[in-house]
């Protein structure tokens, strides 16, 4: 079974994507989508060295909600910053010390940071312990770091595990 479904999450996701792409729940596409999802995940299994499981699906949904909300708020905030006088902006680089260790986790964290307007993750140190972030306007670095770790890193750590 594990050989056939090396990455069940992926297979499911692909199936969902197929149905989304075709905008349908027609039985034909359900079947075809499943076959495709199954074959593609099997075909690309070599590219996924680590196994990924979603340990806490509900947590994931909550995380998504938080992120989307943050994005919305940050958009408005940042829009003001951009449209306002740019000389007032206080840009800065700062490091986020990482607790999360898995490549996927780190990447998703970096991703989240970048997606939230106002911050962009710029670099990962080679030992993968710190993430360099640039902020468009930052007053209090430690508070921001703390917020990032609490709002994003902690849930991510809990949602995704690898075995």
């Amino acid at each position, binding site marked *: 079974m594990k050989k056939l479904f090396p990455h069940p999450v*992926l297979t499911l*996701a*692909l199936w969902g*994507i*197929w149905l989304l*792409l*075709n905008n349908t729940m*027609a*039985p*034909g596409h359900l*079947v*075809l989508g499943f076959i*495709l*999802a199954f074959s*593609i*995940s099997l*075909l*690309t299994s*070599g*590219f*996924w060295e680590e196994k990924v499981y979603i340990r806490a699906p509900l947590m994931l949904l909550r995380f998504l909600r938080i992120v989307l909300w943050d994005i919305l708020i940050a958009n408005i905030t940042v829009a003001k910053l951009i449209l306002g006088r740019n000389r007032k902006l206080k840009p800065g680089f700062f490091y986020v010390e990482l607790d999360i260790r898995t*490549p*996927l986790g*780190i*990447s998703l964290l*970096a*991703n989240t940071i970048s997606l939230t307007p106002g911050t962009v*993750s710029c670099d*990962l140190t*080679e030992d*993968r312990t710190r993430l360099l972030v640039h902020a468009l306007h930052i007053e209090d670095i430690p508070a921001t770091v703390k917020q990032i770790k609490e709002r994003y890193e902690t849930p991510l750590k809990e949602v995704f595990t690898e075995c």
Partner: protein
Amino acid sequence: MTLLSFNIPVVVLLPFVGAIAAAWVSRYSRLASAWAATIITLLAMAFLAPAAGLPFQGETLIQSWSWIPGIGLTFSFRLDGLALLFALLILAIGLLVIGYARYYLSPKDCMGRFFAYLLMFMGSMLGVVLSENLIQLVVFWELTSLTSFLLISYWRHRQDARLGARMALAITGAGGLALLAGVMLLGHVVGSYNLTDVLAAGDRVRASELYLPVLVLILIGVFTKSAQFPFHFWLPHAMAAPTPVSAYLHSATMVKAGIFLLARFFPVLSGTPEWSWIVSSAGLITLVIGAYIALFQHDLKGLLAYSTISHLGLITLLFGFGTQLAAVAAIFHIINHATFKASLFMVAGIIDHETGTRDMRRINGLFSYMPHTAVLAMIAAAAMAGVPLLNGFLSKEMFFQQTITASQVSGWAWAIPALVLIAAIFSVAYSLRFIHDVFFNGKPVDLPKTPHEPPRFMKIPVDLLVIICLAVGIIPMFTVAPVLHVAVAGTLQASPPEYSLAIWHGINLPLIMSILALAGGALVYTARKRLFAWHDASVARWDARIVFNAILGSLDRFAVGVTRVFDKGSLQNAAVWVIVTALTAGFIGWMGISAPLLGARELLPVDGVSLAVLAVMMAASLMTAVLHRRRLVSLLMLGVVGLVVSLVFVKFSAPDLALTQLSVEVVTVVLLLLALYFLPQSTPRERDKVRIGRDIAISVLAGAGVAVLTMGVLTRELTPISDYFLLNAVPGGGGTNVVNVILVDFRGTDTLGEIVVLALAGLGIYAMLRGMKLPAPDRDSQGRLWSSDNHPEIMRTHTRLLFPLMLMIAVYIFLRGHNLPGGGFIAGLIAAVALIVQYLANGIAWTSKRLRFDMHWVIGLGLLAATATGLVAMGLGYPFLTSTFTYLDWPVVGKFEVASAIAFDLGVFLVVVGATVLSLVELGKLSDSSHKAEQQKRRTEVR
């Protein structure tokens, strides 16, 4: 079928066959070639013999076969008196030369080659004189040029032989081409290339407006071949040939071919002032110049060569007079010259053979060493000088008579006999020199060999020829008369006029001229020392060869100049020419037809978005050019153009194109970046402002031209065939996306060709990159070392996540393509990009390890799939690529379409993936190996 219906072509072709035989048998025995040549010549004579009597009965034998009827070229032969005379001369003297050459050639000389060439030459000459069709005559005429080239350059290690042969080929070849042109025009006038028709159409030809071109062109052929002024200079240089060759070519054959032609066309072309003027002027000048120069030659063969030129001039002059009696004299002198000149050349060869030199300043007093040869030479030379009781005397008398006749034609014509007399004096002088300087005149000087009589058989040909000289000279009526008669009849194509071959006509002007010539000649010869000094100081420096070389040299320089100026090996030059030509062509084409530039079709309104987007495209396009020296920036600008082009496609209802353009754009950028790594990062500033200005002008014109063309078309109505596709896509092709149905069905062959192009690009790139090494820079253009993080972790993770998703999209785009925008191309490109992203993020080694497809295999399978659908149709009795489709209704799944076009599109998909990935990965590997090489180098440097 009797022998008489096909023997003439056998006579002509036999020597060619014999040439092969002669060359072949030489591997068995040296002398076998000579024997073969002898036998072949005898055989040819034997084949000629049964027909030889016909001209004497007043008949002309024609043997003809169809060859290229479209242009009136027949394979046909003609035997009349003239042809018979020449054929006999060619064969008889040929036979003698063969016998002579067998002894002449040294053991170092390859006999097989010699006799093969000689036989081929003989065949060519026979072909010239025996041809009925004029084109065929030209064929053999040119063959004589070619084979004489081989004969003259026989001693190829000698530079003078090579140069002499090439000069002869150049001059006679040129003449041959002129002759071809003349003959074709003549045939055009007459309406036939057959001599019979041409000879019967003399009046029509002379009345034609093409008469002068025909005459001039044919005469160029004649004059070059017969070494008439101003084309005479090749002949002395042809003396580098072995002497038997000279004896043959310059007595009876090669040079006589021109004379033969004069005789042949005499009834057609002569009798006009143009003929008289051109032919007799050339003849007269040649006669005088040849005789004069001959005296001053120190080379024995040189003397004979110029003498030959002079005698050819004499014959030409006679033909130039245009009267029938002059023609008789000309024919007679042809025969006589052939005999005495052949024997003289042979004697020269014997002397050369025996003494090792031909320099008359060193050869003296040979009479005591080789009295027999000396006597033969003296008789022959006397014949050349026109001494009574020898054949030369008779024809010279006739010649003098004709000059006197001609002198009464007009006021200035008194000059003719005067000049002729001067030439005759010099003729006597050089003949005297030939005899006195060689056989008497003291002792030999510093000869390489001690001379003695040659082998007896080497002299036999000379003996025979000298006997003929005597026999004709003494008893012409019983020897030469019948042959002369039929030859003249053949020449004139009418019964010959009254003429007398008597030795004694009483004391008349010609006799006085002869006596004056003999006396004057003796006088000139005695005064030779002073004359030589004067000549060497003045005239000797004037050699037409210098002019020839100057012409050829400047032609050569001109050729090099023109070629290198135009074809300078510069791509920009070539490209400018193509573009400028295209512009000109378009302009001329349009200007040629008077029509308004713009039509009256209703146009679409402009909207702000389009305006802005197009403005961005134009600006980006201009920036690409303006910033081209900063390559990366230029490439970024190009990216904008690509993006906007796809937006334009979307805007104007072409979603398939937009998708394709987008995907191609991405791959192109990656490709160009891969390559840019190995190239300089910037383009050096161009210093040539003029060129930039020129290029800008060309570009602006090209742009304007294309813009105008586009407007011209877009403002006109169009009724395309496309409604058919719109109507038949669903019922006939089974798809609603008409563009896709066209691609995979209506015009599937285009698509097939196109994926072959892609496959070829992939394979070609693979082949090019094989074994290629390029130095990889270890720092960027600002001198910074590269980042050490070659595969950033965050990117790696993301792209791996993306990989299956992109493949899913590829499948989606593929499957919907028949009905909605998409299809094999786009899907293939998406899949390829999905793979490329993996390579970009994870590197080649990592990705290749996980992707075990050989991309060659993918390409091959793709082509197989695309072609197989076509072949299946063929198997079912339909044309290649005939498609079919059907609707299936399965439980659960529902109703869905299955189309053979999908299999075709799958082939497209596979080829696109295979070719794209193969190209990019091979390019990536190039840098991989370079990196390693670079690191290796650094490591070894550290050690």
